């Protein structure tokens, strides 16, 4: 049987879709309030820094970012194809690179806290 990386990228897509389905809507509500100039108390530097400094907070932040990025990247690759862009190799390279860069940046920022 030919080797395929499909189970890996599809698994990340499924996990990403599930994680973002559970948490993204509520997160958007929180930052929407900040966009409207009514940032809630929990968005203060002290509160967010305290949350993201704890190992459990770090784990949650990294999990949400990592899975959401990889799920979106894989879906975006399929979206390009569906809109008629057939340069799949190039599209896949770019979207997965952005997801990888975002994941590495997230890990580095969390380690600085």
């Amino acid at each position, binding site marked *: 049987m030919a080797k395929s990386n499909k189970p890996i990228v599809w698994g990340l897509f*499924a996990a990403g*879709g*599930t994680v*973002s*389905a*559970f*948490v*993204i*809507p*509520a*997160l*958007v*509500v*929180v*930052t*929407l*309030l*900040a*966009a*409207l*100039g009514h*940032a*809630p*108390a*929990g*968005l203060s*530097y002290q*509160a*967010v*820094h305290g*949350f*993201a400094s704890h190992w459990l907070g770090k784990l949650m*932040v990294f999990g949400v*970012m990592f899975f*959401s*990025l990889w*799920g*979106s*990247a894989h*879906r*975006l690759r*399929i*979206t390009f194809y*569906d*809109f*008629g862009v*057939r340069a799949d190799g190039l599209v896949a390279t770019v979207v997965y690179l*952005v997801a990888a860069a*975002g994941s590495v*940046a*997230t890990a*580095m*920022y*969390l380690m*600085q*806290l």
Partner: protein
Amino acid sequence: MGEEMSRKPYVREVPKHTWFFRHPRYMRYMAREITCIFIGAYTLLLVKGLGALAAGQAAYESFLQGLQGTGSVAFHVATLVLAIYHTVTWFNVTPKALPVQIGEEFVPNGVIAGAHYAGWAVISAAVLLAAGVF
């Protein structure tokens, strides 16, 4: 190979860029696909915010200030609508993607989807509570 098998193979024409206008079902499929553009962009925005947080209080507060504005509000509203659409459509297909069998019987679709909706409500309430929204 195709020519050997049939002299006049039937080739159904599919317009590459406009096929999804042919049926409302295809349009809904594409709407689901488009949610990833906003969710992905929003996640990158969060990565940027995390970078500001790591850079210190001044950088973080200027990031929060930078979130204000009409364009940002429009982006947030669009992302919220599409994120909710993603969540609803995702949970509605979960029973098909992850059928659960107990003994001879399959757990009804409504129970699996319902459990996910309940989890969504709990997690959303926890996030809003932690953020001090209420």
